[in-house]
């Protein structure tokens, strides 16, 4: 699915990723943890193709193809989805319109016909129920006036509709109360399948109580310094990050 090899990347000229390697196979859930400033979010944005986030060395192959040869929108259409930590507002563009355009773009890319409005409406309503968002939100401007939690659930709803192959979730759990966290976890768990992989970027072990990862990686100084199974997350919860950083040093 995703093979990251010795990736170096800069943001506005500043080196953030520093030789990161990671392999994600189909169906796997990987959790990326680490202290503030370790490069967790940067990894997501470099993979998604955010302007200003530049890979300076290393390779990334996604579904067997060089990721960096694809434009941002091409990566998205090929099933790479990033759930944003801070989704922006697009005033006046209804959620429904935005979602349909996104889904249609992906379908067109796969050589499928655009969905008719009625079918899509049904799907969208269904998805909004799954993420516990009032269907009225579908008519509102994209993220316009949404609370933090509503924005996160809106991201999840987009993920449900777009059915990505690789979903990168950038601190989707931050700022969520326990009920919302469970909604998000249920959404993710319902989507787990042998063809779909997840990369969960998170600060806290809390999310992993609800979404059980196959692997946990600790990021420090722009590279993965330790990998393990879910017990690593528990250990981190108990002991913090300092001991790993000390060991590495």
């Amino acid at each position: 699915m995703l093979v990251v090899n010795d990736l170096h990347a800069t943001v506005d000229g500043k080196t953030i990723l520093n030789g990161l390697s990671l392999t994600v196979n189909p169906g796997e859930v990987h959790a990326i943890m680490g202290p503030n400033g370790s490069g967790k979010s940067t990894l997501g944005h470099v993979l998604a193709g955010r302007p200003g986030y530049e890979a300076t060395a290393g390779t990334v192959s996604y579904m067997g193809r060089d990721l960096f040869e694809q434009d941002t929108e091409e990566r998205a259409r090929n099933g790479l989805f990033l759930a944003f930590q801070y989704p922006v507002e697009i005033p006046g563009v209804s959620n429904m319109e935005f979602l349909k355009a996104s889904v249609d773009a992906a379908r067109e890319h796969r050589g499928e016909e655009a969905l008719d409005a009625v079918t899509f409406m049904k799907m969208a309503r269904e998805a909004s129920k799954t993420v516990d968002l009032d269907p009225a939100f579908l008519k509102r401007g994209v993220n316009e006036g949404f609370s933090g939690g509503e924005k996160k659930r809106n991201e999840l709803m987009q993920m449900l509709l777009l059915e990505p192959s690789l979903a990168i979730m950038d601190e989707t759990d931050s700022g969520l109360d326990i009920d919302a966290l469970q909604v998000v976890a249920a959404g993710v768990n319902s989507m787990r399948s042998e063809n779909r992989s997840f990369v969960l970027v998170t600060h806290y072990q809390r999310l992993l109580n609800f979404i059980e990862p196959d692997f946990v990686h600790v990021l420090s100084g722009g590279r993965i310094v330790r990998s393990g199974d879910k017990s690593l997350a528990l250990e981190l919860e108990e002991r913090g990050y300092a001991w790993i950083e000390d060991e590495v040093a």
Partner: protein
Amino acid sequence: MSQEQINQAIDKEYAAGFVSAIESDTLPPGLDEEVIRFISAKKNEPEWLLEWRLEAYRGWLEMAEPEWAHVHYPKIDFDAISYFSSPKSMEDGPQSLDEVDPELLRIYEKLGIPLHEQEMLAGVAVDAVFDSVSVATTFRSKLAEAGVIFCPISEAVHEHPELVKKYLGSVVPRKDNFYAALNSAVFSDGSFVYIPKGVRCPMELSTYFRINEANTGQFERTLIIADEDSHVSYLEGCTAPMRDDNQVHAAVVELVCLDRAEIKYSTVQNWYPGDAEGKGGIYNFVTKRGVAHNDAKISWTQVETGSAITWKYPSCVLRGDNSIGEFYSVALTNNLQQADTGTKMIHLGKNTRSTIISKGISAGRSSNAYRGLVRMSPRASGARNYTQCDSLLLGDKCAAHTFPYIETKNPSAVIEHEATTSKVSDDQMYLCQQRGLDPEKAVSMIVNGFCKEVFKELPMEFAVEAGKLLEVSLEGSVG
């Protein structure tokens, strides 16, 4: 990277630009009383109208071109303009569409103007103006049943002289301003609408304008009269072919909205804006004004994407008590386009209300100015105005300006003004692209979202067209 993409998305050749090969019967350039007599004679006008034109011309000679607008262009040589042209094959006037020059019909086709059976489906009567002569008017009989008069103003002069004589120049006086005076002297043709008392016009009335002869100034004159308790929705739309010389356009639109009547006037304007270097675009100096009597309502909605220079302030004189004026505007400028547009709401009557929603979009190296006047007269007690003025910038070489003028002489009047300026942000572009939208589609979607409040005021078929027009103006033919 995303800035570059925005630039690519907005660099798009004018899609409606092409030159048609129809021959025209054109007067040599220049303006004097003889030219005005020629125009008037050509139209078999009565003596009073000739005198009316000459009086306007004499007034114009003494007026100076206004220079206060936030636009810059080389001085116009009014003697280099030809003041009359008509498609040759139209000399005798076609009796039906079958008699219309096929080349002309083909152009309309190309512009997507349905002149044949599609009119019925669209429910729209089209009074198509090609250069200065009306070539086809449809649905006249159906409108006649309702008592509605919808015809070229040149025809109304002969068939309804009492109405024309009474109202022509009653809203925009002959010497109102430099361009209105010029228009009054040389106006070619335009639409005339009369809705009788208590009648709700059974369909939306629509006119398409098109400039087609090089160096031919276009001087349209439109007069709409909504008698007491009547209602009409009027649509105006235009696109123009690619040209190398600047073309002057000075239209006048007058709306007379009598007691309890309602006029909704919607415009989609797409005059040729000039090439990327600003060469060859239309200079558009328009005077549009309506007078609303007691309990009457005038609503202007405009989507302005074309012209090299736009100078235009559709206004409402709220003369009657409880009358309502509305102005909803989207003005988009790209490349080197310059727009100075807005409205005037003149509150004369008691409890008059006005709403102004203006959305300006600047791209390329363009300049986009909103200029609006809200005036509360001493008698306008209880009057209210709400103004919202938003600017959206695409890129870092364009400009947006807001010039609000507020004059109030009545202490009970309430005026609210809100203004914002924003940019299409990199983060918005990134979100759209991360969801699989190409940059072109993303820009178009964001811009359309910005304009939503105005688009929802447009009649359905126009709203779709307007969205498309923005896409074309910003790039090309995005979905």
